[in-house]
């Protein structure tokens, strides 16, 4: 069965806003598509997301609990799409989305976790299985992000008010996603994207 594979990304920042829409980006027509969406905001607000019009699956268990900052979207449509996030209280916000394929549709994510930044270092370690893909979304207020140690999806900042970054790494057991903050503080959400079942192999068995 093919491994979970990164497809595309988009991001945008806003100030004094209650919703954001990314620009158009292409989701390829590969099977078993999924998206990971994250928001960084400087107030406590509850987000809801859509990608290509498909609503999110709710907060990922284990990710930062005080906000629904990171969520998955299963089976977004292919083609030119946008991601949308909305909330109730105006804030300074960064919205980022990464899309993937070969993701198990029934349970697209597991092993959600989060870790607070220590000084200017942000790091989260995600447990995975070969064929999976690990993803992080780092949100911070009061600084910008640099030096990601995994493959960059997006890195967007609203001045030095808030910043958000997303990377993806190999599913090789345990994968650490680290960044450097210029200042401020934040939290890294980490999640494992689960490889789709091998239906052909199951049929043979």
């Amino acid at each position, binding site marked *: 069965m093919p491994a979970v594979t990164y497809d595309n990304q*988009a*991001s*945008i*920042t*806003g*100030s*004094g*806003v*209650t*919703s*954001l*829409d*990314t*620009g*158009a980006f292409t989701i390829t027509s590969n099977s078993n598509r999924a998206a990971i969406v994250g928001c960084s905001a*400087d*107030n406590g607000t509850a987000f809801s997301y859509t990608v290509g019009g498909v609503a999110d699956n709710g907060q990922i268990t284990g990710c930062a609990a005080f906000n629904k900052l990171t969520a998955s979207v299963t089976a977004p449509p292919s083609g030119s799409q*946008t991601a949308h996030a*909305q909330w109730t209280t*105006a*804030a*300074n916000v960064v919205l980022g989305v990464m899309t993937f394929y070969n993701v198990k549709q029934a349970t697209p994510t597991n092993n959600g976790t989060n870790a607070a930044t220590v000084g200017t270092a942000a790091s989260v370690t995600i447990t995975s299985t070969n064929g999976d893909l690990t993803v992080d979304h780092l949100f911070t207020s009061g600084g910008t992000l640099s030096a990601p140690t995994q493959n960059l999806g997006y890195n*967007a900042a*609203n001045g030095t008010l808030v910043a958000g970054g997303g990377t993806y790494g190999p599913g090789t057991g345990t994968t650490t996603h680290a960044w450097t903050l210029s200042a401020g503080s934040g939290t890294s959400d980490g999640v494992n994207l689960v490889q789709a079942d091998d239906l052909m192999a199951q049929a043979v068995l």
Partner: protein
Amino acid sequence: MATTSVVALTGSLLAGKTNWGPITPVVGTVAIQIAIDRAGLALLTQPFTWNAELSTDAGLTWNSIGGGGSVAGQISDIHLVLFTESSTTKNLPTATNANTRLRGSITLGETVVTTITIRQT
């Protein structure tokens, strides 16, 4: 790179969709901010949205670069400082050139006196 500002729309905008542009961004621009002045929104009640599109072929084809939405009235940040404007900022994948064009729209639920400023960095 210094920031260059262009006023895309100003004055009394009616309820519904109002388009602006197209404008030609300064060559070498890598980030576009769309800013809506909130001074005239203080006593209003209806939410509003905006978006922008970019062309890299002098206006033949257009692609969304995103947008945002906000509420009317007076709104403040976590430090209780009033937001004087609402804005979205998009980092461009490549710097603009002479064939780049930018256009957009704002959709209002009521008549609003405001200014939309395009900041190019």
